């Protein structure tokens, strides 16, 4: 890595993009196209979190044909496949090379604060000044672990999906996986398959079949324009932003992943973790209802797909539509578990992720620590964000959503810059 910048005084650049993942590179593409002088700062290597914070077997939930970035669509031989992590890293690296992004790797941002006419960005490799700043550090930077984790006995190993790699790193014995979104349900399946008994604590979740009427579910999401749904189209933006990722897995055989496939393998299903008293873990008795809510929501989606096929003559399997079996929940699932005399040796907290803004010294967070923004335009002039769930559209946190958002954010950013300079000229 180039170290000639050491001990230099603060460097100036029009725009700084923090984060060298797909979102940061997508916005860099448009900034370059509009000749905006900028740098992309990356704390590690490019696509760092895909390299270091994902488990070994993980594949994307979106098929290859869907993962376009600005100026680059899929040209490989397996459009319906799902990239593994090494392929994702390769894909992002190739994109950065082609787009010649001005990337500074191994550059960790330690603080961002307002300064005269813009922002001061402190890094482990010196200071920068910029007029505009784009936060593209991702929505999944920090695993969320509930406070009750502290009340667990020390003899039990606790992990987050960022630390989990494969079942071999776990002790022999039972595993409690908390959370049944994409991460929790995939990890539960893999660990149960390794011969360890998994208990899966299930709260509200989103269920989807991998394919429906002969096509990948993402094909239908795309053709029903659901991924393009914007923040103007939804009634309760906080609710949709808080939805968990769907129970999906990307495998060559396109198999389904849901509460039924998991319990068929032998995974024990319990309700959401509701509390811990001494060594006794308590589960909510709402399991049947969260399963029913997920089923009904999935059935409404499938109805909408059927309707679109009918009305718009979309190409689909000619066989009559098969509806997935509803979630089978036992009449009285266990409401508690005594950790002291159970087989559980490991707890895996798949309870969601949040962005990390610990370095952000600009007063733009709400009382829940979320960035205050409208469609990625943050509540401080010249500050922008990329890649948050439903930031502008349902696809905002998807790879394929970066293009639209990057273009819109760049337009706003350039208008802001020219507006500023126009005022300065008048003065």
């Amino acid at each position, binding site marked *: 890595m180039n170290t000639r910048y050491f001990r230099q005084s603060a460097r100036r650049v029009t725009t700084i993009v923090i984060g060298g993942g797909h979102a940061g590179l997508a916005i860099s593409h448009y900034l370059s196209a509009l000749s905006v002088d900028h740098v992309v700062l990356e704390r590690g290597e490019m696509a760092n979190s895909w390299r270091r914070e994902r488990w070994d077997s993980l594949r994307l939930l979106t098929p290859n044909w869907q993962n376009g970035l600005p100026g680059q669509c899929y040209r490989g031989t397996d459009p319906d496949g799902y990239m593994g992590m090494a392929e994702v890293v390769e894909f992002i690296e190739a994109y950065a090379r082609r787009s010649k992004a001005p990337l500074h790797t191994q550059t960790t941002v330690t603080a961002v604060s307002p300064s005269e006419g813009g922002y001061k960005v402190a890094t482990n490799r010196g200071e920068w000044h910029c007029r505009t700043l784009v936060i593209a550090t991702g929505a999944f930077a920090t695993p969320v672990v509930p406070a009750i984790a502290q009340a667990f006995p020390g003899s039990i190993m606790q992990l987050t999906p960022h630390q989990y790699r494969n079942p071999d790193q776990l002790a022999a014995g039972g595993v409690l996986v908390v959370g049944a979104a994409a991460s929790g349900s995939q990890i539960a399946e893999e660990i149960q398959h390794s011969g360890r008994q998994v208990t899966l604590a299930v709260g509200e979740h989103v269920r989807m079949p991998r394919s429906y009427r002969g096509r990948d579910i993402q094909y239908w999401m795309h053709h029903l324009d659901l991924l393009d749904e914007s923040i103007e189209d939804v*009634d309760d933006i906080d609710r949709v932003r808080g939805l968990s990722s769907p129970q999906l897995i990307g495998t060559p055989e396109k198999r389904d992943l849901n509460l039924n496939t998991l319990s068929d393998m032998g995974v024990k299903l319990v*309700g959401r973790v509701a509390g811990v008293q001494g060594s006794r873990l308590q589960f909510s008795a709402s399991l049947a209802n969260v399963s029913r809510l997920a089923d009904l929501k999935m059935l409404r989606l499938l109805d909408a797909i059927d309707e679109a096929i009918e009305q718009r003559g979309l190409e689909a399997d000619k066989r009559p539509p098969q509806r997935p079996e509803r979630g089978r929940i036992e009449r009285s699932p266990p409401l508690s578990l005594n950790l002291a005399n159970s087989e559980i040796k490991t707890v895996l907290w798949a309870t969601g992720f949040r962005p990390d803004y610990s370095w952000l010294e600009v007063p733009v967070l709400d009382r829940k620590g979320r960035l205050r923004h409208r469609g990625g335009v943050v509540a401080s002039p010249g500050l922008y964000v990329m890649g948050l769930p439903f930031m502008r559209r349902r696809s905002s946190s998807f790879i394929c959503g970066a293009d639209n958002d990057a273009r819109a954010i760049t337009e706003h950013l350039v208008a802001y810059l020219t507006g500023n300079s126009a005022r300065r000229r008048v003065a």
Partner: protein
Amino acid sequence: MNVYTKIVDNGVDAKALMAAKEALSEAPEAASFQWRARSNWVNGTHCYSEVEQFHGLGEEQSHKRCFRFDADHPEIFASEDNGATPVEYVLVGLASCLTAGIATVAQHRNIQLHSVQATMMGDMDLQGILGIDSEVRNGFEHVKVMFDIDADASPEDIEALVAQSQKRSAVFDIITNPSMVEVEVRS
């Protein structure tokens, strides 16, 4: 945004509720409520309770009048049966909470209700409260709620109403999840 053409009236002021939701998300401290009841022993297993004051929206509030409830146990327990048993009040609370939720969600989803009846069943093994078998819990082993609903909606939409009402129900949450209960004696 949803645009509806038919007029639905379940007697729920959905607009006022939405306005309240918006106001309380702006001022979360006003959303802090305290519900209260006062109970007095009468004789035997008979108590009467009163509900009148509560706290919310940053100040003391009051019901339109004081509500009174008698609780007792049936004669087969050698009691005088002056009122419903406390566990039946729990069933009443759950039914009332879910039903109010159904009416509200139906209004929000533009579904006209004609009738909503909840039949409540709480299974309990008395060996618990009588101290006969320490492995039997005191409370309900199983609570079953059966709704009969007549509404202008498909069976799936009615099912979704009931599921959404459970998701947002305070009493359903209180029963299905542990709650901290602190009991003190004033000296």
